[in-house]
């Protein structure tokens, strides 16, 4: 197999299967859908976890810390497998589809990382800012909403963007359950063509275009945010 023939096959497979059979759009569609769900609900759940972890309730602190550490300390693939089998058992009446189970697994995983992003974003705000606000007699709530959070957001948003990129890559794990996202197309095309390497390289290029575009967009947003301060 020459290099030239690999490029030739890559082009061939791309035109025939990704464009011709529309696998590109369904693959990207499912990948972005899964990532968007995981990031969006992960951000909401992650914020709640971060708030809970900053509260004074010791038991809540312990539970959240345990959850976050377990999610960060075990492989995402393992978590998806567990979600894939456990969610249908717990929600028998809803009869969740595999993609829903995977989405829930990814969301929980992303929530753990997001909660750490938010927590460290808040902690990165200089302690003097809080002290100055409290010394002026502002309540802890006003201090949080008017002084700390507006500054923390600037640390949090770029990191959240990066989490989005990470999640896009992690959705490839969902191909283990044939949910139709981009990595699943590998199994589909391989089954017909038996041509592995060019297919994998096509997929790599598609992932890269997605993540690279996104990271440039995030960079632009970041620069605009810095300019506004």
């Amino acid at each position, binding site marked *: 197999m020459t290099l030239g023939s690999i490029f030739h096959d890559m082009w061939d497979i791309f035109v025939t299967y990704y464009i011709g059979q529309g696998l590109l759009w369904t693959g990207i569609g499912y990948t972005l859908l899964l990532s968007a769900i995981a990031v969006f609900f992960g951000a909401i759940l992650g914020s709640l976890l971060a708030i809970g972890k900053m509260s004074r309730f010791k038991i809540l602190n312990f539970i959240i810390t345990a959850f976050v550490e377990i999610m960060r300390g075990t492989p995402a693939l393992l978590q998806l497998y567990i979600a894939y089998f456990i969610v249908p058992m717990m929600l028998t009446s809803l009869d969740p589809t595999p993609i829903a189970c995977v989405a829930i697994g990814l969301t929980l995983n992303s929530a753990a990382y997001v909660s750490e992003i938010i927590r460290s974003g808040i902690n990165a705000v200089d302690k003097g800012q809080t002290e100055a606000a409290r*010394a*002026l007699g502002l309540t802890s709530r006003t201090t949080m909403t008017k002084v700390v959070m507006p500054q923390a957001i600037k640390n949090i948003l770029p990191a959240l963007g990066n989490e989005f990129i990470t999640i896009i890559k992690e959705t490839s794990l969902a191909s283990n359950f044939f949910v139709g996202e981009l990595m699943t197309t590998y199994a589909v095309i391989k089954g017909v063509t038996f041509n592995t390497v060019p297919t994998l390289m096509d997929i790599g290029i598609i992932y890269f275009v997605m993540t690279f575009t996104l990271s440039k967009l995030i960079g632009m947003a970041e620069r605009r945010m810095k300019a506004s301060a």
Partner: protein
Amino acid sequence: MHDQNMLEIKNIYKNFGSLKVLKGVSTKVDKGEVISIIGASGSGKSTLLRCMNLLEEPTFGEVWIEGKLMTPVDPYLHYDVIRASNTYKKLLTAGMADMDAITKIKSEDMLQEKHSKEGPEYKALMEKIYKENHIDTNLGRRKMSMVFQQFNLFNNLNVLDNIMLAPIETAKYNKVKDLNAEKEKIREQAMTLLKRIGLEDKAGVYPSKLSGGQKQRIAIVRSLAMNPDVMLFDEPTSALDPEMIGEVLDLMKELAKAGMTMVIVTHEMGFAREVSNRVLFVDEGYIKEEGTPEQVFEDPKDPRLQDFLSKVL
């Protein structure tokens, strides 16, 4: 039951873990007084200042602002509370005299923190004193604003909003009827203050674009906008370049002349000598010496103070 000093701290102890930073500090600040707190680094002078507005919570002791109690009640400061405790009653039945028992309880920290162990009479008295005198921490802090070594202007707000934030939030808290009119008044006051320090053209600028001296003068003005009764200064010139120290000290002198009550932790001995009515020398967690600037600087009694002055003057 309490005299109307502007600010009074009673027998303040502050421990950070096993480190004892303050070991029983008491002082009164009268209206219009300018007090300088001097001492070596690590002597506890900043901690003392931060205990006054509860940025550090004292381990023991009480802080009073205008006759109102900001800290929890410290039972050791109230003989009647000690006498109401079970611990005291036990000592008395064991044959101890009244003052001996009180002294023993105070010096050995014998009162149980759980009120129930000291009996209902003790608990009721503690609650009564608290209820009659206590003021919410945030309300207390609004009477005494603080200026920091690191300025601590809010980075997310421009100069004008930095000054206006706390007065506006206070107006909201007080449920002012016409908030917009009140905001307009606050804005006018803020602009007047900015004019006073010659920085009205910086109203829309963010803190990152200002020099250290400008930041600190704006921080002072931000404190003034709360119309405080006492201003606390925590080494306000220590983080400044030498050429900017003058402008900040000049503003502080102006405030002192205008009759503002001020407590200043400082390393600027010349300044302390010039503007203070009273100087406190803090060392090893105690006020080792206090007096007029003349007494403290020209005729120091404490050997540690003599040593300190010989190094810094």
